[in-house]
């Protein structure tokens, strides 16, 4: 699966330090496959006791839909569980925008075709305001050009991504393919060291 450019509405989650225990609580980590975690994405925020959908939570509101999740600073901190990235991707998100990502989450996302887009805090706040003012606001995320644009609001920013990882996403490669191709170098390293 490859990723180049998308044009979509957004789901805003203006909360800081969203940790992976919120994204997918530990009790849902018992599965041994990668599928189906979307069902329990943000489980304890999404459902009230008795599994009643919480009407105040954004994923339960029809107003906000789309393939881009826009979240507060330090998204994905805490546990290394890749299940967090699987849950977001399984739910249907293709991009997460935040002003800061925790390291492990950032890598896990990239390894699962979920593009983390880091923008500055100022841009993030403007994006939140724009979405709040008009939930139908569309954003364009262009991986090739490394830009995030909100045409209706005249907002535009670039974002960083390592060229190797960018190539992986665009071409649908993963790290294992690459590392396996370096096998000779690895064996040589083992002999010398």
């Amino acid at each position, binding site marked *: 699966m490859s990723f180049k450019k998308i044009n979509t509405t957004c789901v805003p989650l203006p909360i800081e330090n969203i940790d992976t*225990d919120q994204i997918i609580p530990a009790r849902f980590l*018992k599965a041994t496959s990668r599928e189906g975690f979307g069902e329990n994405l943000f489980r304890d925020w999404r459902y009230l006791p008795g599994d009643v959908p919480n009407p105040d939570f954004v994923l339960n509101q029809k107003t906000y839909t789309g393939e881009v999740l826009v979240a507060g600073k*330090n998204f994905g901190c805490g546990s*290394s569980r*890749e299940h967090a990235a699987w849950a977001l991707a399984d739910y249907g998100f293709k991009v997460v925008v935040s002003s800061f990502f925790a390291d492990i989450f950032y890598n896990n996302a990239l390894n699962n075709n979920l593009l983390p887009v880091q923008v500055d805090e100022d841009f993030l706040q403007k994006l939140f305001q724009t979405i709040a003012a008009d939930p139908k606001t569309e954003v364009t995320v262009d991986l090739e050009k490394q830009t995030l644009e909100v045409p209706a609001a005249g907002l535009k920013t670039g974002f960083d991504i390592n060229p*190797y990882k960018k190539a992986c996403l665009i071409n649908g490669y993963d790290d294992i393919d690459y*590392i396996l191709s370096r096998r000779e*170098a690895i064996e040589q390293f083992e002999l010398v060291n």
Partner: protein
Amino acid sequence: MLGVPDSYLSFEKRILKRKGCRNSKIKTSFFKKPQRTISPNRMEAQQPKTLFDKIWDRHVVERKEGYPDLLYIDRHFIHEVTSPQAFDGLRKRGLPVFRPSQTIGTADHNVPTINQHLPIADKLSAFQVAKLEENCREFGVELFGLGHEKQGIVHVIGPELGITQPGMTIVCGDSHTSTHGAFGNIAFGIGTSQVEQVLATQCLLQYRPKTMKIEVNGTLARGVTAKDIILYVISQISAAGGTGYFVEYAGSAIRSLSMEARMTICNMSIEMGARGGMIAPDETTFAYLKGREHAPKGAAWDAAVEDWKSLASDSGAQYDAVLTFDAASIEPMITYGTNPGMGVGVSKNIPAVAAKSNESEMAKSLAYMGLEPQQSLLGKKIDYVFIGSCTNSRIEDLRQVADFIKGKKKAPDVNVWIVPGSKQVEAQAIAEGLDRIFREAGFELRQPGCSACLGMNEDKVPAGKYCVSTSNRNFEGRQGPGARTFLVSPLTAAAAAVTGEIADVRQMI
């Protein structure tokens, strides 16, 4: 060695067997010889290096412009929760585990902590633990599974078996892999895709993180422990203050800590967002490792120690950030909010706003915790005490608690769980009679596992209840849906257990 199953041999022997080596000279050179830096140019070689740089550079298989470094991984720990999908990935690709003797498995996250001899009641948990056993058997990975005398929390057993050593690169599909850094190595948590990569290639593609030195100097006051140091540092720099960095802890207060206390410090590096934390190896490190099952022996030991001594940061080595703290100004710490950066000295009031936080986040956290800004926590009634987790479940933690509660009883309405970090810690506690002290005080000594640290098994704190916990995360719902966590040291936890409320342990010793 023909016919001897791999699991009966030590790691070293298995690697040799795999490499077809018999010659003891090769053996020594393969394991103990100081490893060479990869193609350093003259300038680089002369520049003072940090501990981190030295170890990283030794492990770079390939460095290419525009690519992350290809980093060799010496030790890989796996557990039941983050490995099944990785093994499935190998199966799909038709790949074996590249170096099975460098991976070690244990069951910890999702195991019951009572009646471990019985089949696991929860079907999904039972399946996950069985899957780990099946995967390890099929792929030839050594497993300290449930019921094994060396089973335990992955970050407790690695060091206690001497598998964790200075100078190594160590990874595990668990963020608290940073714990191992206490021995002076590069240890960090990875996701499941990366677990698969390490299984398949013994390597990872990694960007070199920035380095941060955190120096803590001076002497700790009575009743103040390593846990308080790290909770204090995180409260000062926030839960994101270390993101993008690899931390080296230094300074006289760190140097004077035991290995177990150093592990507590490094363990929580991830709670400030850092990828890992490390402490340069010294005599304390060598004394801890000497004679441990997987530690080098004889001449190999001497050679290893000599190499390890070269691992300290050079004077004048540059860090991307340096922070300095004074140990004497640290008091027993407690968190009041829903990230580990929201902590205060136990005698202080909750601040109006936490460092580097904002009002709305603070309000959300305190509402979850049922607390008010500027409230004092002393005297706050609590319901549960959890002493355990890879942060504080080692024998010294248990001894400290036992010593404090000897002759005392737990408060009547409080449930107290003590969950040792490993079977070996449990056995040691029993051998020292600590179990009796716990029993007499009304504490429940359970069997090893992650337990209420993450509430994946039955050990959950009920919604709305307060748990004083020696673990490392106070996230919403971490210890059970709706559970409210106060992170503290084992001593402060023991003080809460006997008083039934948050207390200043300094007044009680």
